[in-house]
């Protein structure tokens, strides 16, 4: 077919596809009727077959470039992942998040181990070199404890709580994002958080304030440290995908892991709102120490029963192919 005949015969559908692309709002076909979307698919398939013909027969003609651009613009409108819906949040927290947490358990263990190494190192530093205690631990902490000021509530608790929540979410996001730099910033955050906790814990232990100290840490700390460990784990997942991509190319391995890990990271980061509220209102409050410790234990119990148990029951009809009974020939 000559170029002119080719164009004359088919340019109608190209114009129709172009009009349909223009009609798509915000890069989506969502506002269109079912018939329109079906027609869009038909037009795209026809036009991409025209593109294949044009590329074979008229590789240098401007129409080939035109058809390529047209198909390239239409393609992502039709081919896309799952749309983000408000209604998906419930099932995400109910099943998807705990499942992806459990699936990523080696990274969660590794992340916890990094924080534990930091903690032990910090503890040993204070324990072995008591002379360095002053430079390792803020002295104001001991002054406050000695004066018995801790546990009498914080002034402006809502403002302080907002700071804590924002800071911790920022740290959690950095833990994930740091994965792209081979997880080095992630490991640094985990080690340094463990170190800070270790130095203070050792100093407090040596100073004999331990019970009071733990009542100050535990109510929010169980949740807060768990979230930092989990988001640290997501960062380590990215670093691992880059360093050990397996059968895939590094970029592909990274992208596959990252789109799963990011939802886990964002999901647990949202828990920091609860942790920050506890840290501002419960931890420094004048509540009796046993109550504070019980709050921490309760939060921990809820958190880990959710992470470890939720979504374990497979949904009916979702069995894997090899679970199905073998078909018997009639």
């Amino acid at each position, binding site marked *: 077919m000559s170029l002119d005949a080719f164009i004359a015969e088919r340019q109608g559908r190209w114009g129709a596809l172009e009009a349909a692309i223009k009609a798509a709002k915000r890069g989506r076909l969502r506002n269109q009727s079912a018939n329109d979307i079906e027609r869009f698919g038909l037009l795209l398939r026809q036009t991409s077959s025209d593109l294949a013909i044009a590329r074979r027969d008229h590789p240098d003609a401007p129409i080939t*470039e035109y058809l390529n651009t047209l198909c390239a613009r239409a393609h992502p409108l039709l081919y896309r992942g799952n749309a983000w819906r408000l209604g998906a949040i419930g099932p995400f927290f109910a099943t998807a998040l705990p499942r992806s947490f459990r699936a990523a358990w080696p990274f969660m263990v590794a992340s916890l181990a990094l924080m534990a190494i930091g903690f032990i190192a910090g503890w040993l530093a204070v324990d072995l070199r008591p002379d360095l205690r002053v430079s390792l631990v803020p002295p104001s902490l001991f002054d406050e404890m000695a004066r018995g000021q801790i546990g009498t509530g914080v002034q402006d608790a809502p403002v302080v709580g907002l700071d804590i929540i924002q800071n911790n979410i920022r740290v959690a996001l950095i833990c994930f994002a740091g994965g792209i730099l081979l997880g080095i910033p992630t490991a640094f955050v985990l080690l340094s958080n463990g170190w800070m906790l270790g130095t203070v814990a050792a100093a407090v232990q040596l100073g004999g304030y331990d019970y009071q100290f733990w009542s100050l840490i535990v109510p929010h700390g169980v949740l807060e440290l768990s979230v930092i460990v989990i988001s640290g784990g997501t960062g380590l997942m990215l670093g691992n995908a880059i360093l050990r991509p397996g059968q895939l190319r590094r970029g592909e391995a990274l992208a596959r892991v990252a789109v799963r890990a990011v939802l886990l990271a964002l999901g647990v980061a949202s828990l920091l709102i609860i942790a920050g509220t506890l840290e501002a209102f419960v931890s420094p409050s004048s509540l009796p120490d046993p109550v504070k410790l019980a709050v921490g234990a309760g939060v921990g119990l809820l958190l880990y029963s959710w992470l470890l148990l939720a979504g374990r029951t497979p949904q009916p009809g979702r069995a894997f192919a090899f679970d199905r009974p073998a078909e018997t020939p009639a």
Partner: protein
Amino acid sequence: MNSSQLDTISVKTSDNVTLGYSVAGLGSRLVAQILDNLLAVPITLVAILLFSAVVGIFVTGADGAGYAAVGAGFFAFFVYFGYFFVAEAVTGGRTPGKSAMGLRVIRIDGSAADFAAIAVRNVIRIVDVLVVLIGIVVMFFQPQTRRLGDLGAGTIVVRDRAAVSLAAAVAPPPILLRTPDSGPPIDGLDRIGGFERDALRVFLSRPGLSPKLRADLAADIAKRLLDRLGLPPGAPERLWPPELFIERIYLQLDQRHP
């Protein structure tokens, strides 16, 4: 569309057709980034003022004021990075700045960037921006101008604008003829099909050929045409120079099938 070209990526669709996407360059991406900042920075400033005003209600002492100032700093961080996240999620990868530059985020397989991919590239934006603008350095050396967030999310920023309009693509390019005279009829034109005619048109509409090259090409094409027409070689030189011969064949073909 050559897949080895650096400024395009090739995507094979489910219809087994290869689409070429034109990759956005560093320049257009930086301009888009500046345009987005013209929105993001004022929005952030307004947000800081609102934050301080609202939080100020709860502040009772000097310590509280200090905490509120720190909190405003954190809030600025979230609003600034949140602008890009929300703008990309809502517009399907075309923030106002990208839209103005005719750019769009897609996944490397040609499908639209979904929520998870946009989340990844926008959380990693923190590293791209805050770690000494490492994103720009990576984009500079990455052949497809992807920043770290793009590498993590499996996304790429492409040009989303029509390069050629249908009207321009369909309009035949001007034919550079030396004479509009089609000359005496030539026998055997039935043997010349649509492909040869297209080839002649490409030759005749090609600007900027040096006279020597044009004459050489014309001689080569004329030889093939003579072969096809069944005329003895050397005939055009006797009739007309090869260039004129080609032009006349084209004109006569055009008269037959306009």
